[in-house]
């Protein structure tokens, strides 16, 4: 079964000490890299870092030894986007004070939440005096999403880099996401430049952070750069370090073209625009190329760099990073991590390509049943730009026609919801998200269940075994909260794998927790028991055997399909009680008594009743009252129209939202500013 053999990402757990660096690994820190490619491109070194907007950019001046591809990785709000903005300004790629902050985060949702969802690239030109000679360098900043939901995308983006700036807040120090990102970069064999940022803060303690970097990652304190992206302090050392410490791209310019697909987006006028990195060979306008993943062929209609907007150059050479427009119709054809090559050549595919893996599923329905077409259009348009969402039609007795969507994770789901509303103005009702369970039935079948509604209803077929996905969670907390966090994790059926201390004040823990338990409000709980000082991260892990049951919600005996969930047997009672109580709060009195029940099979585990409405009558209605009374009743009719109906019970939309809400508040990549205790935007995920 492919589900069971789900690859868990290698994590580096060495017996009783975590995050020791593998002994035989050595960092390529500070090693001047001697470029292997000495092919004589015509050279006409530029003396200015500023490019004239109208000038033609000749990429042939930049053989691989004049190219550096790097990324910035950081815990949320440690200053990644501001640092990126400063580097773009420093190289004249954008003008200082022009353009919006967080330049590379183009989506509204990214700006609002301070997160990166889509990968972006930016090409910068930088004149650097190395060994007494001025040389122009081409620097590609590859901005990656930071969240676990997008860890595959991150790993692909990092695969196109040779180095990374690991940015750590000078006051907060190492956080959960710092750890996760470090290991992603580490696995990709990147040269890592540690940067302690925000040193202008009064609570900055760079020495302590240096110690953490040393003890956690074995990073030499003397290699650490100190900066403040806000004041500009120390920024001048960054790009020289990039040039000196990060190797040039290793590709061969005389080999067949191999290019790496980083991400894609849909442009109304140009169609699909792919961000690519040329690993070997070169790509020119008019070339025909094919995809390893889909086998489809395309012709290059336009090719160029992001500087920072589309800038046509006619070709891209080995090691360069840019965009390709090729008449691709849908981003579904552009698979992140795919290898693209010249048609009619044969190449070895680049390693690491995986199809999108959906970990969270939910039903999406139009809030107003008549808006199905609008929702359908919006989802189609949005998946043009986010091919990682799986979409299948489904229908619900309560909510009508809708879609079952699969997401990479909860944040991905939440972002998708938000983009549907913000970019397409659709109003949706989402069902409670579910993780994919695996069931083995007595008839010998074994199925992945992505929808509680799909749980077999045939009483003749027994469930022999069931499995649920788990995650490996990393939690970093001030030591006084250890007890509370251990309680929370064990209550969430977590299994402790690691427990150690980063320094005298901060504990580090690693748990295996069922994904389902993270989905349900885990992060809010963690925040509240640690007064917001916890930092948390997780990565997908394997499926484990688990005793799960389907929990039905019934209104006057009729099951509400959109409210069914799959829960662990031990949790069913509590979840059932909570759902029933919540519904009682949101469903108004109606003309007859309503019973709300939570049940497993035929066994009712929680029950509430809403007594019948007592009266709703207009005292009198004479000639002069008719118009007014009618308006009132029409208003009442409109109110009923917005309700969802199961049997004869009207359910307000708010009830669905309220149920979902308990399951969200999910954002794990979040931490408060240590020492300040300030609460960030709770969705702040970088």
């Amino acid at each position: 079964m492919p589900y069971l053999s789900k690859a868990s990402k290698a994590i580096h757990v060495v017996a009783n000490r975590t995050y020791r660096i593998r002994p035989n690994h050595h960092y390529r820190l500070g090693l001047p890299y001697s470029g292997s490619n000495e092919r004589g491109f015509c050279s006409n070194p530029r003396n200015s870092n500023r490019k004239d907007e109208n000038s033609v950019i000749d990429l042939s001046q930049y053989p691989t030894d004049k190219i550096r591809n790097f990324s910035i990785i950081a815990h949320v709000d440690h200053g990644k986007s501001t640092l990126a903005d400063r580097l773009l300004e420093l190289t004249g790629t954008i003008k200082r004070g022009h353009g919006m902050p967080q330049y590379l985060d183009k989506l509204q949702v990214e700006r609002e939440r301070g997160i990166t969802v889509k990968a972006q690239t930016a090409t910068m030109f930088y004149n650097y005096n190395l060994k007494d000679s001025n040389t122009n360098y081409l620097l590609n900043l590859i901005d990656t999403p930071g969240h676990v939901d997008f860890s595959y995308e991150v790993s692909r983006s990092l695969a196109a880099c040779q180095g990374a700036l690991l940015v750590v807040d000078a006051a907060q120090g190492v956080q959960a996401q710092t750890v996760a990102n470090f290991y992603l970069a580490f696995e990709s064999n990147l040269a890592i430049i540690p940067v302690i940022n925000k040193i202008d803060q009064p609570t900055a303690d760079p020495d302590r952070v240096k110690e953490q970097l040393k003890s956690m990652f074995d990073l030499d304190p003397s290699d650490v750069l100190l900066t403040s992206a806000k004041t500009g302090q120390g920024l001048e050392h960054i790009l020289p370090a990039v040039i000196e410490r990060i190797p040039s791209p290793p590709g061969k310019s005389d080999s067949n073209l191999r290019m790496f697909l980083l991400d894609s987006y849909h442009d109304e006028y140009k169609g699909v625009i792919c961000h690519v990195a040329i690993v070997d060979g070169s790509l020119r306008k008019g070339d025909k190329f094919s995809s390893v993943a889909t086998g489809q062929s395309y012709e290059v209609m336009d090719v160029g760099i992001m500087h920072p907007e589309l800038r046509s150059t006619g070709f891209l050479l080995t090691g360069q990073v840019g965009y390709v427009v090729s008449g691709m119709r849908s981003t579904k054809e552009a698979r992140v991590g795919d290898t693209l090559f010249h048609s009619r050549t044969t190449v070895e595919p680049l390693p690491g390509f995986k199809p999108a893996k959906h970990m969270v599923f939910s039903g999406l329905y139009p809030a107003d049943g008549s808006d199905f077409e609008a929702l359908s259009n919006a989802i189609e348009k949005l998946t043009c730009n986010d091919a990682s969402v799986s979409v299948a039609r489904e229908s619900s007795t309560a909510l009508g026609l809708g879609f079952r969507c699969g997401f990479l994770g909860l944040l991905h789901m939440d972002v998708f919801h938000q983009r549907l509303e913000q970019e397409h103005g659709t109003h949706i009702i989402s069902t409670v998200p579910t993780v994919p369970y695996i069931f083995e039935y007595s008839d010998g079948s074994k199925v992945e269940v992505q929808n509680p509604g799909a749980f077999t209803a045939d009483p003749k077929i027994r469930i022999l075994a069931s499995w649920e996905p788990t995650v490996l969670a990393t939690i970093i907390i001030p030591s006084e909260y250890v007890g509370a966090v251990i309680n929370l994790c064990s209550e969430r059926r977590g299994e402790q794998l690691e427990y150690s201390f980063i320094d005298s004040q901060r504990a580090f823990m690693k748990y295996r927790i069922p994904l389902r338990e993270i989905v349900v409000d885990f992060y809010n709980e963690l925040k509240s028991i640690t007064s917001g000082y916890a930092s948390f991260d997780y990565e997908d892990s394997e499926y484990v055997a688990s005793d799960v049951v389907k929990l039905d919600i019934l209104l006057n005996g009729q099951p509400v399909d959109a409210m069914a969930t799959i829960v662990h047997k031990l949790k069913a009672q509590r979840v059932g009680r909570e759902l029933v109580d919540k519904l009682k709060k949101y469903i108004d009195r109606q003309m007859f008594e309503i019973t709300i029940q939570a049940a497993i099979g035929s066994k009712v585990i929680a029950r509430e009743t809403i007594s019948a409405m007592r009266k709703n009558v207009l005292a009198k209605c004479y000639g002069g009252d008719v118009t007014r009374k009618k308006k009132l009743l029409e208003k009442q009719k409109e109110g009923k129209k917005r309700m969802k109906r199961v049997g004869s019970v009207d359910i307000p939309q708010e009830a669905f939202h309220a149920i979902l809400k308990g399951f969200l508040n999910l954002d794990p990549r979040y931490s408060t500013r240590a020492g300040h205790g300030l609460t960030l935007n709770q969705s702040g995920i970088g």
Partner: protein
Amino acid sequence: MLKSTVAPMLLTLHTKTKSNNFLTLKAATFCSTFPQNPPTVRRNASTNTLTIETLETPSYKLPPASAYVHLPFCRKRCHYCDFPIVALGSTSTETADDDPRISNYIHLLIREIEATQKTQIDQHPPLETVFFGGGTPSLVPPKLVAKVLETLRSKFGLSLDAEISMEMDPGTFDDKKLRDLIGLGVNRVSLGVQAFQEELLKVCGRAHGVQEVHEAIEIIGSCGVRNWSLDLISSLPNQTQEMWEETLRLTIEAQPNHVSVYDLQVEKDTKFGSLYTPGEFPLPSDTQSAKFYRMASRKLGEANYNHYEVSSYSKSGFECKHNYTYWINKPFYAFGLGSASYINGTRYSRPKKLKDYTNYVKNLEDGLIDCSQVDDEVNEGEMAMDIVMLSLRTSKGLEFKSFIEDFGSEIAVELCKVYEPYMKSGHVLFLDDQRREITEDEFSTLVLDDEKLENEIGFIRLSDPDGFLLSNELISLAFGVIDP
């Protein structure tokens, strides 16, 4: 000068007619009767289930046989009242004979009646009902009432056995005044008692006490008025179950042949509105006021009153004919401040402020207003909603066959289906043509066959008291069928 006074009125009229939002649909339906229109128009129109043929002589197109006359004067405003009234002040009592505010108003009212277009000039049937509402009509001197009645009689004719009702408040009339009114033809009294407890009358801001109530009842008896209504309000602030029981007992003892019971409605711009929230202390809870409603229904029923409309009870044959015209969607004239007429399918409300009303009468005299001439803009969906809303308030209920005839069987059948669960819960009753109740079992067979349903069902009514108590819910469900 003239133009500036006219403009706002026309504006009012314009927006009024525009509020018919199905206007275009109706227009298309009417167009389809002309031969030059392509047949597609007709098909399109008929998919909306409402066809032109059925509306050839609907009741709303008949000339009105009823007139409402608004006499807005009160001694003071009651705390629950948001009606257009003119408070005269505490000094004015029944000796307000020569109060110029009253005589000026009556003069204006007469001008309005005289300037009103008759819907059928040749053969206007005489009026069958006249209702003097207010305000407190009993504050108006009988000689002025006589002028109004005289004007109505000469303009429209007044049937010999017309029902002429007048709302009267305790403490505003004596034996002589009532006898004078009877002499003018007033033959039905609607007495605004509201409550039999001093503290409740006080809390309502009524201008009379319990003593005046008893006196008024006595006067009515001694003058030999047989047809009179005793009007009550339930769910008043601090009203207890014992008080309500007492009120009902004293009401029955007073032997009116009609009782109106209004559940207190807290209106926004009233003193009550600023003081109280419905269902919250000191107002009775919803459960409590539902109990009051049930109690009234039971006690009055036991005393042989028929609960013939949500808030109306009467001894057999003493239903208020005038009010009944509202509930069966028949047309009626209306005259006076803030009053609403229903002519040719159009509801038209007069201005609520005296100054605006004065201008209105002027414009009417100048021929600038015709509140009945909007014939081809009448909208069938709106009409169907009116009919459902009004008829379901009555114990007679919705006449199913004529509803099908007017609005098509599709809507009618759909309505039955929507009401099916509420039939089972006892809120809605389906009756056959002989008014025998259709059982649940019978209904479940009928509902399988639309044609049977159309044939077998004679009436749909709300049950008393369960269905009446939730009439808003049930009627708005029906609205959802008519205008989804």
